[in-house]
C-alpha cells in the first residue's frame, strides 16, 4: 500500500463571481522514502496541493489517504493531532516563534506528543546536531542568520520523525550559497535518514535533486522523466 494516496482531488475557490479550480480531479501516490518536487507557474495550485496534503486546507472533493487514514474526514482537532504526529513542515519564511530559542522552537512539535522530557531533550539534541546547530541552541531567531533560521526550521520539521516532510519553497528566501547548503541538507534527509519528502519549488535546481519531479499546469499534475512529461496524474488525462 502506498504511503500517500490522493484520489480525484479537486479544489475550487470563488473569486467574486468567478470560480477558480487550481486542482482538478488529481491523482497521486507517494511511496515511503520518495523524494518528490512539485514545480509550476505562480498560481497554478502548487501550494494548494501541499496545503491539502498537510491537512491545513480542505478539498472541495476527493480523498487523501495517508498511512490508511483518510484525512479529509478528520475534524479540525483530530487533524491537528494527525499533523503533529505525521507532518514535518518546512516554511519558506522559516516561521520560527520569535519568543522561543532555537532549542525551544525545535522542541515545540514534541510538546504535542506523549513523550518524557528526557526523550524530548534527546530528540531535540539529535535534530539540532543533524542541522549542525547544536552551538546555537540558546539563540533566539533574531540572533540567527537566514540560513541558520531555515536549518532550525528543518530541525523542527524532522524532530518528531514524521511520516512525510513537506517544504514550501525551502530555499526561496535564501542567497545562492545558503540555498545550496540547505538543499544539500534536504537531500541528506532523504538519502541518509530515509525521510519521505515533498517539496514545492520554483527553482529547477531544487527540483532536480528530487527523484520524482512533478509539474502542475492548469489543474493537471504531470510527472517528468528526464525533463519530459511521462504521464499525468489527473482524471482528465486518464479519460482522454
Amino acid at each position, binding site marked *: 500500500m502506498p504511503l500517500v494516496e490522493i484520489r480525484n482531488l479537486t479544489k475550487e475557490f470563488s473569486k467574486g463571481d468567478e470560480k477558480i479550480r487550481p486542482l482538478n480531479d488529481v491523482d497521486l501516490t507517494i511511496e515511503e522514502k520518495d523524494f518528490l518536487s512539485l514545480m509550476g507557474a505562480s498560481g497554478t495550485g502548487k501550494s494548494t496541493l501541499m496545503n491539502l496534503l498537510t491537512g*491545513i486546507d480542505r478539498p472541495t472533493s476527493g480523498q487523501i489517504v495517508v498511512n490508511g487514514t483518510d484525512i479529509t474526514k478528520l475534524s479540525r*482537532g483530530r487533524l*491537528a493531532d494527525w499533523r*503533529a504526529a505525521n507532518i514535518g*513542515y518546512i516554511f519558506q519564511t522559516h*516561521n520560527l*516563534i520569535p519568543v522561543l530559542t532555537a532549542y525551544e522552537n525545535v522542541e515545540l512539535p514534541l510538546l*504535542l506528543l506523549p513523550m518524557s522530557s528526557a526523550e524530548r531533550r534527546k530528540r531535540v539534541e539529535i535534530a539540532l546536531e543533524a542541522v549542525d546547530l547544536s552551538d546555537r541552541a540558546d539563540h533566539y531567531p533574531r540572533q540567527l542568520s537566514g540560513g541558520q533560521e531555515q536549518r532550525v526550521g528543518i530541525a523542527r520539521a524532522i524532530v518528531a520523525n514524521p511520516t512525510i516532510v513537506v517544504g514550501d519553497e525551502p530555499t526561496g528566501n535564501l542567497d545562492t550559497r545558503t540555498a545550496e547548503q540547505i538543499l544539500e541538507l534536504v537531500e541528506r534527509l532523504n538519502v541518509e535518514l530515509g525521510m519521505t519528502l515533498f517539496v514545492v519549488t520554483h527553482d529547477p535546481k531544487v527540483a532536480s535533486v528530487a527523484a520524482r519531479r512533478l509539474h502542475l499546469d492548469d489543474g493537471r499534475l504531470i510527472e517528468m522523466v528526464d525533463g519530459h512529461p511521462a504521464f499525468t496524474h489527473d482524471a482528465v488525462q486518464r479519460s482522454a
Partner: protein
Amino acid sequence: MFRFTPYVLKSLWRHRARTVLTVSGAAVALFVFCVIGAVQGGLESLTRQSQADQTLVVFQENRFCPASSRLPEDYARTITKIPGVKDVVPIKVLTNNCRASLDVVVFNGLPPEKLRVARDLNLLSGNWTEFENRTDAALAGQAVAHRRNLKVGQKFTMGEVTVTIVGLFTSSVTAEENFLYTHLDFLQRAPGRNTVGAVTQFEVLLADNANPDATAGAIDAKFRSGPVATTTRTKGVFQRETLSDLAELVGFAHWLGYACVGLVLSLVATTTVMAVQDRIKEHGVLQTLGVRPTRVFRLVLAESLLQSLAGGFLGIGLGLLLLGWWGFSIGTEGVTITFQPSLGLAVSGAVVSAVVGVLAGLAPGYQAARTQIVAALRQA
C-alpha cells in the same frame, strides 16, 4: 498541561511595555476595588458586631452631633432602675470634626472603672492602673496612634484638651481603635467646656433576656416630660443612622467598585485582542505544527488570565498593605468606620481578577482558535 508555560510567559514578555501597562491598569483598578471593599467591610462589621443589638445608646432627642447632645449625668440613676438594664455607662464625646473626615480624632470620656467592663480592649502597652490613677490619662487605639504617631508617655493636644497617653490598645471592634479613651470628669472639666454634670450619651448594657425595643421605649417615656427628652436606639441602629450619609456614599462607591472591574475587563480584553491580531500568522504556524484550536484558545486565555491575575495580586497586595499599615478610617459625628482589609477581601479580589481574566480572554481566544491556517500563513 503546563508544557506551553514558557511560550505564554515569553509571549507576554515580548510586548513587555504593553503587558506592564495592562498589569498596572488592572492593579490600579483592583486597588480601588480593594479600598472600596475595605470601607464596606468596616461599615458592615460596625453595624453587625455582637454589641450592636444588646446595647442601647441614649442621645438627646432631635440631636445628631455629639457636640449638641447634652444629657444630665444623673439620668444614669433613673435608667439603671428600668427593668432589663444591667448597667449604664455615661459617655462624653469630644471630636475635632463633626463632618465626614478621613482623620477624625474622637475622645470618649468614661468613668475609668466602667471602661474595662463596657469595652473589650486589649492593652498593647501601658497599664490600666496608671490610666485609673491619672486624671489626664488617655488610652489610644492603635489606629489613631499609628495615624498620629502617638506613643506611651507622650502628651497629645486637641484644641484645648491635652492628655497624656498611658496606653495603646487593640479591640475586637476595629472601629474602637480610632478612639482615645479618657476619664469622663476630665473631659467634662476641660478648659472652655464647662460641662460638669452633662454627658453626650449613655450606653445602656442590657440583661440577656431584655427586649431592646421595649427598654428603649421605656427610657424615652421616662424622660419625655423631663428637662431634656431622649432618643434611645440600639447601638447598631444608632451607628447606622449616624453614618447614613456616609453609608450612602459607601453604597455609591460600591458601584465604582463594579466599574473598576469593568475597566479591568475592557483593558485586559483590549490588550489580548491586540496580542491576538499581532500574532495571526504565529497562531497559523502553531496550528500547522499540530497545535489544536482548543489549545490555541487556552493559550490566549492563559495570557489574559495571567495579566489580570498579576494586576489583581499587585493591586490587592498594595491595597491591603497600605490599608493595614496606615489604618485609614472615616468618621462623622463621633462614629468612625475603619477601613477593614481582610483575607476574605483578598480572596474575593483574586476571584474577581481570575473571572475577569477568563472573560477578557474568551472572545480573543475564540478568534485565535478559529484562525484559517492558510490565510494566516499568507500574512506578511
